[in-house]
């Protein structure tokens, strides 16, 4: 996923899909799937059977056809697409929270970032992109199986050189001492983040930043209280993404005759609904219209940021 791991993998007009590549199979905006290309393998979905061998040598972004003539698009993976296709082992963070966290934590190439818990690795993937090529993400989850699955995923997406997954109960034990004073930023997604804060203080470089993600306001209140002794710039945000649906539609243009008199117009009969209506003229113009989708996520969580006070 990160061109950094192999310069040859960089997206370009000449870069073609190869055996072993990870591709995102795009059916529709709400239906995508990650597939590892394997000569001899096939993908079967409602559009038919797709031979992987047909894909090899095609550019990313190509439309490919099934035996039945159905088609899908093959896209190059990005952290954003990955977030839409990864397997949910936990609640995951989505693009709005992710992008805000990375900017607010001031993560740039070369940074060292600590994360707990790893969860499904949705944020981790974006963190890896942000610190690459020379920085590193150390991510921890107390759940052994979950950490192992995350490791597999990071191999698959090609970010394993940039990410190290550890099994550790950060709330109980804190981050490992070896990272003391080495972290540029720390991200916490824990039920009781306040328990991890003393460890975060030790890990952060001076002026470093921590972010805690919590769904409930009580968690925010308690974490903020704990942060106040050693941190400054304590700020809490909530971010949501509102999406719009676009349609090309017609709007009836309604007109009442100026005279307003009943039955004065010998107008043509139209559809049944407006039959008997002598006062109405209908004209239509096609326009592109957009409106917010009513199905929306109402809340994901609160993001609390704080910067370690500079006391030296």
């Amino acid at each position, binding site marked *: 996923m*990160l*061109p*950094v791991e192999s*310069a040859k993998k*960089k*997206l*370009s*007009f*000449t*870069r073609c899909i190869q055996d072993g590549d990870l591709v995102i199979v*795009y059916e529709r*905006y709400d239906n995508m799937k990650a597939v590892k290309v394997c000569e001899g393998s096939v993908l079967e979905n409602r559009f038919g059977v797709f031979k992987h061998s047909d894909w090899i040598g095609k*550019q*990313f*972004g*190509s*439309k490919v056809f099934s035996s039945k003539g159905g088609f899908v*698009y093959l*896209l*190059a993976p*990005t*952290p954003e697409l990955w977030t839409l296709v990864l397997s949910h082992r936990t609640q995951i963070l989505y693009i*709005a929270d*992710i*992008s*805000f966290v*990375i*900017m*607010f934590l*001031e993560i*740039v*190439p*070369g940074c060292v970032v600590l994360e707990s818990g790893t969860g499904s690795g949705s944020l981790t993937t974006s963190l890896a992109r942000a610190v690459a*090529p020379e920085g590193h993400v150390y991510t921890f989850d107390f759940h052994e199986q979950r950490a192992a699955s995350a490791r597999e995923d990071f191999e698959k997406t090609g970010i394993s050189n940039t990410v190290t997954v550890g099994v550790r109960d950060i709330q109980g034990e804190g981050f490992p001492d070896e990272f003391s004073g080495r972290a540029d930023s720390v991200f916490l997604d824990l039920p009781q983040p306040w328990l991890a804060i003393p460890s975060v203080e030790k890990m952060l470089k*001076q*002026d470093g930043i921590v972010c805690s993600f919590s769904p409930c306001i009580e968690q*925010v*209140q308690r974490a903020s*209280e704990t942060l*106040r*002794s050693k941190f400054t710039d304590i700020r*809490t*945000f*909530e*971010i*949501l*993404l*509102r*999406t*719009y649906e*676009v349609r*090309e539609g017609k709007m009836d243009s309604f007109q009442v005759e100026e005279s307003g008199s009943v039955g004065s117009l010998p107008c043509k009969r139209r559809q049944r609904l407006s039959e008997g209506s002598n006062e109405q003229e209908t004209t239509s113009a096609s326009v*592109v*219209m*957009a409106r*917010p989708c009513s199905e929306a996520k109402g809340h994901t969580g609160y993001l609390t940021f704080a910067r*370690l*006070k*500079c*006391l030296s």
Partner: protein
Amino acid sequence: MSENKLHGDAVENPRLTWDGCSVLLDINDGDRLVFSRLSAGAKLKIGNKNCSLQPLIGCPFGSFFRVENGAQGPYLSRYTPSNEGNSIQEQGDCQSKDELRDNRALVDNNKAQSLTGDAINEMRRQGASGDEIVEALIANSATFEKKTLFSQEKYRLKKQKKYAPIVLLRRPFTRSICEAYLKKYPVRIGFLRMDTLCLLLSMANVSANSDVLVVDMVGGLLTGAVAERLGGTGYVCNTYPGGSPYPMDIARIFNFGEEICKRIVRSPLADLFSVQTEKSKVSSHNGDSCSMEIESNEQISSTAGTEEVSLASENMMSDLIPETTYSVERKSSKSAKLGEKAPHEIFSLWKENGFTSLIIAAPELDTWSLVKKILPLLSNSAPFAIYHQYLQPLATCMNNLQVGKMAVGLQISEPWLREYQVLPSRTHPCMQMNGFGGYILSGTKICTNN
């Protein structure tokens, strides 16, 4: 450490300032935000005092300073704040009941203060510190004792801000630059909010080694933000229709070292197409090379001219780029050059490979006409993100891309950001908020040849 790349190659510890480094000065907890370039001669006006910024050189980012009265006049002195600054919050908990008590009896008629302005000036002349003045004001306030603890703290904070201002030294990052401009001079950055900007970067998959094409009509903020993410790898190509490049002064506020500055290039849109169409053109471009180089320098100076014009009309934003420190920047020219004309060899590479990302923040151009032309420059499967203040241009563009089968994963989204006050017994969303962050159209380009 690659981080050095980001903060000037000559610097050993990017967590300390250096002579010539660009800093963000946060005065009184966000009340005033000033971008400055540190140097022996740089000065900052705080209240009615002109203070040298020299004492800030070599200090860790995150340090606090306050104005002290020295023999040679007022100067900035580093200090370590105790937890005092948080006392409102910390006392809040135990006084939540107190706070809820009403203040029926309190009549605040501004006559409660018996310490006159003259008396305060006299104290100053005698070398009293700001904190001493604040204490004197409290001692001479007739109503202070009658206030609730919470109101007392509010009063103290207000006086502290006026008589003992605190300056906090910050590294300029995309987030602070964006936040500062949005607060003080939103028009210059096209009202681009920080949360919208970071979505653009994510949606366009800006990552190390990317070749990012940008149309940046937001003063260089977008270009700088992309360059920050590239960290000295790949390229950000700032393109523009017509003959005059858009200003990118804001990109200069970032503390970019030479490595990163080299990766910020610009090119007229027409040149990108001409390279695309004819190989011969490229060599003819080679012939123009020198004159172009000169032209590019001219552009820089003409930009500087423009800058002064805008500075003149920018009294309201003098806080952001004080003229004094700004001229220092020009003279010392410590900051590496950025935004040079794109070199020819990478032109051919772009032609061959296409750009890997596209971001457009061009509120004054018609979105669809621009996208229609610019999209072929993108590699297939490359993501793009387009910012606009109005919904309709993006809706039209999205519809046309859909109908033309030029892209998939198309979505118009609007970020909705809310900041909270989290204090014991007083937690709620902030009462005043920037309620609109603009719209983004995002998607992925697909192959059109099959």
